[in-house]
């Protein structure tokens, strides 16, 4: 079971969280202005890296707040967690 550091509550077990997939995908300000291809890209296309991945997590059974995390998909190590809307301090190009 992963140990995840909620930026608001501290370390908590994985069962308290829900993963929301790839982070830093902003909803387009004007979806109507997007072509079908652009909209499909926004909706469906996600990265699936072998290595560090920026993910959205929600402390669903805790404070209920969404935040972001950098996790290495190979080792399951978390490099950092940070509030929604913020940017990570690590690069996602590295391997944990």
């Amino acid at each position, binding site marked *: *079971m*992963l*140990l995840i550091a909620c930026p608001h509550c501290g370390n908590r*077990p*994985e069962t308290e969280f*829900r993963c*929301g997939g790839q982070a830093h995908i*902003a*909803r387009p300000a*004007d*979806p*109507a202005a*997007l072509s*079908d291809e652009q*909209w*499909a890209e926004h*909706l469906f296309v996600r990265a699936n890296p072998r290595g560090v991945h920026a993910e*959205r997590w*929600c402390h*669903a059974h805790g404070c*209920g*707040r*969404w935040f972001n995390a950098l996790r290495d998909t190979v*080792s*399951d190590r978390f490099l950092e967690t940070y509030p*929604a*809307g913020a940017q990570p301090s690590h690069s996602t190009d590295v391997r944990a």
Partner: protein
Amino acid sequence: MAQPFRLSRGGRIDRTRPVRFTFNGRTVEGVHGDSVASALLANGIHLVGRSFKYHRPRGILSHGSDEPSALLSVDRGPGRIDPNNRASVVEARDGLKTLSQNHWPSLEHDIGAINDLLSPVFVAGFYYKTFMWPKKFWDRVYEPVIRAAAGLGKAPAAPDPDRYANRHAHCEVLVVGAGPAGLAAALAAARTGKRVILADEGPEPGGALLHETSAEIDGRPAAEWLDGALAELDSRENVILLPRTTAFGYYNHNHVALAERITDHLPNPGTAPRERLWQVRAGEVVLATGSHERPLVFSDNDRPGILLAESVRVFLNRYGVAPGRRIVFATSGASAYTAALDAKGAGLAVSLVDLRAEDECGPELVELRAAGIEVLTGHTVIGAKGGKRVTGLVVAPADRAGRCGAHRLLPCDCVGMSGGWTPAVHLFSQSRGKLGYEATIDAFVPGTSAQAERSAGAAKGTYDLAACLAEGDAAGAAASGSAERRRFTASPTLTGFRPVRAMPTDADPAKVRAFVDFQNDVTAKDIGLAVREGFRSIEHVKRYTTTGMATDQGKTSNMNALGIVAGKLDTTLPSVGTTTFRPPYTPVTFGTLVGPARHALFDPIRTTPIHDWAESHGATFENVALWRRAWYFPKAGETLHDAVARECKAVREGVGIFDASTLGKIEVVGPDAAEFMNRLYINPWLKLEVGRCRYGLMLKEDGYILDDGVVARVAPDCFHVTTTTGGAARVLAHMEDYLQTEWPDLRVFLTSTTEQWAVIALQGPKARAVIAPLVGGIDLSPEAFPHMAMRSGTICGVPTRLFRVSFTGELGFEINVPSDHALAVWEAVHAAGEPYGITPYGTETMHVLRAEKGYIIVGQETDGTVTPDDVGLSGMIAKAKKDFVGKRSLVRPDVVAAGRKQLVGLVTDNPKLVLEEGAQIVDDPGQPIPMRMLGHVTSSYWSPNCGRSIAMALVADGRALQGGSLHVTTPEGFARVTVVDPVFFDPKGKRIHA
């Protein structure tokens, strides 16, 4: 005292405290401190079971949890019978009943032993090669026969009466294994003041020190050092010492699962739980899990009386039991010499056969000869004599090329064999650490760590006592951040061995039965056959031969198996690699894993405040999401069909009362509440007046329906949102996600009020008359309180949000009251309705009534791929809104394409035929198979108010087929149906406005 093989002195046992248990009905006497294995051996009982496949007589191989052969059923009383207990780890106590397994009619005379004679047939892959034809035999002949023959022991038939506990624990340092390395680690960590948990699978901490009678540590006998170490750990508040506790699983981020056995060893367990699951989250982990001795692979090496050499030593030194009077040690390494010396010291006749040449041996050779023990160096073991007990060992000189000389029989009643040592790297490997092969000790040892963990002692391939202590100390200190290191002096340990896979032999290979995996009856020949048949990957060899796949997971056998594969492939061990180590390290009871989550706690249910009333009024219940809801209220003698027909009529003709408390409720509050609602729902909200309701439909961003529900505007900045029963949590999460991550600028607060508001639905023409006398502060007249309005006031003196809404098509109210008052209000309304024949109804009637009106249920008419237009609700979309969640997707090419499935009504030619929900629909039943499916039935009921069956369906381009015929599959063949509008009752919708 019987116990003819009990030594007169020595051992960590109490000879003054006898214990009695039974083995196959015969009373066995042991003493306090015995394991079942040691007590059996004290009484000269070696034959304790029959093997899995060949039903060969089997005895006790080991003293520890790696025991593959001595598997017993242990009966601790009614409902408390467990199969496949290792005799070596079950503590002997009064009242136990133990039974051998896998034989008929008896252990001594087993018909199944015929399999042993047929062994040339039962080769590796026997099942795959044999039970292939004819196909019709698979289910009826092969499967039942194989099932009956398969498995070891019998599963208990009665429910488990025991209680199991569960505990979460945190510590800075978790030490697994309380042998010398683990104790040194725990001491070093404990002295820093950090929280330490030390877990050991044995009943007594100490590991190898428990049978170390001659060694000294820091100038004191090892046992004294052990006592001192345990006393110190015991005196420290920051240490939790857990005996009888197996660390069986190493998971992510230093989450380690321990199984603690609490009461099995107690004759009177009292009320304590039987076992406890510890879920430990450790800052650092020290793995001091020791090592396993390898058996030697020679013909008939599985005969009862043949033990591992170190196990002979354990039985002698720790339990004061002689496994035989005339013992031959067969070895390829030094450690067995220590065992031979101890056996000699116990007054037994001892000789030793070593595969190694004279010049390969160390000082141990001189020592043994000085003790007067005959040592045959450069000798192999050709085979064992005897059937149900070993009677002799046939040995012969063998050179390094494997050429054998003249045979010689060494008569004996016990053999102690040693093929070297294998570090127990199971937990390290489970932690995803990378193993490295260490050629000097012929072993895979912990290499690169993946987690905050370090190994120490024999688990790391370090076998010398002083080195183990130093390594443990260093690991414990490092794990607790201390720079201090201690030095230890200890007697030197005899180590070193020549790796040997199968002992050289000159016997006819066809007649050699040399076992590698004792529990699954896999021989060296089987492994060779698998390689000859083309299996190269060790994972494939494992599955094909089943080596290492038994409950012991090959603790004693894996290295021999790997070595044989490497030899046959003419490659090296590291290039063969190891199979994957998976939890659990040793078998864990289901009870431990399940813990308290049984009975009512297994799958907890939610009930409404009206649940008890419904129960006492005869309701039948169904599970909806996590809720238990009243399904229907049968009167005496009524079937589901009768009751639902009566309830449906009552609502349309009089008045019905329904518990809708499970509806999800969310209070959306804040200056930007209307804007927030506008962005999330397809409907317009900005202009909805206070006190009015609207049916809201919510999409996911992909344009598909997520949920629906009536929403009331309570105040300009407050919406009372309802969701489906199953969707409440999902909708709140969806709302929170957008609010927090996309529109954090909106000033809105979301609060779940599902549990705070109970909802009493009152539906039917008489509904207004029933509540009129109870309601305060609300004008109920149709003009003042029209359909889709909401008023705040009181009912029975209790504050209420009274909704005039309907999911039945009748005049209806949904009375929201605080949950604590719900039952009182329900009873008052029910009493007030008695003169009108008020009828409680359940979810089944609710479903029928809404289907008569063509109202959809999200999750029944929709399945996550249905758009508003698909179910005919596109008219609700606020055209003026530039954007809302899912809007852009409604013009995606595949959403606007022709051929989408649309909601329609279906009526069968035969009005009595009720279609099956999920049934497939075609246009031409005569077309060739595979047919073109047009859609499926989503809802189907008998409609008492229409006097016929009705159904709703999703059909490709269905709206254009109105009036046409289609065909629906039924168990009796195709049924013809006509496509109609899905509103079957009161199509003009007049009744709702009454």
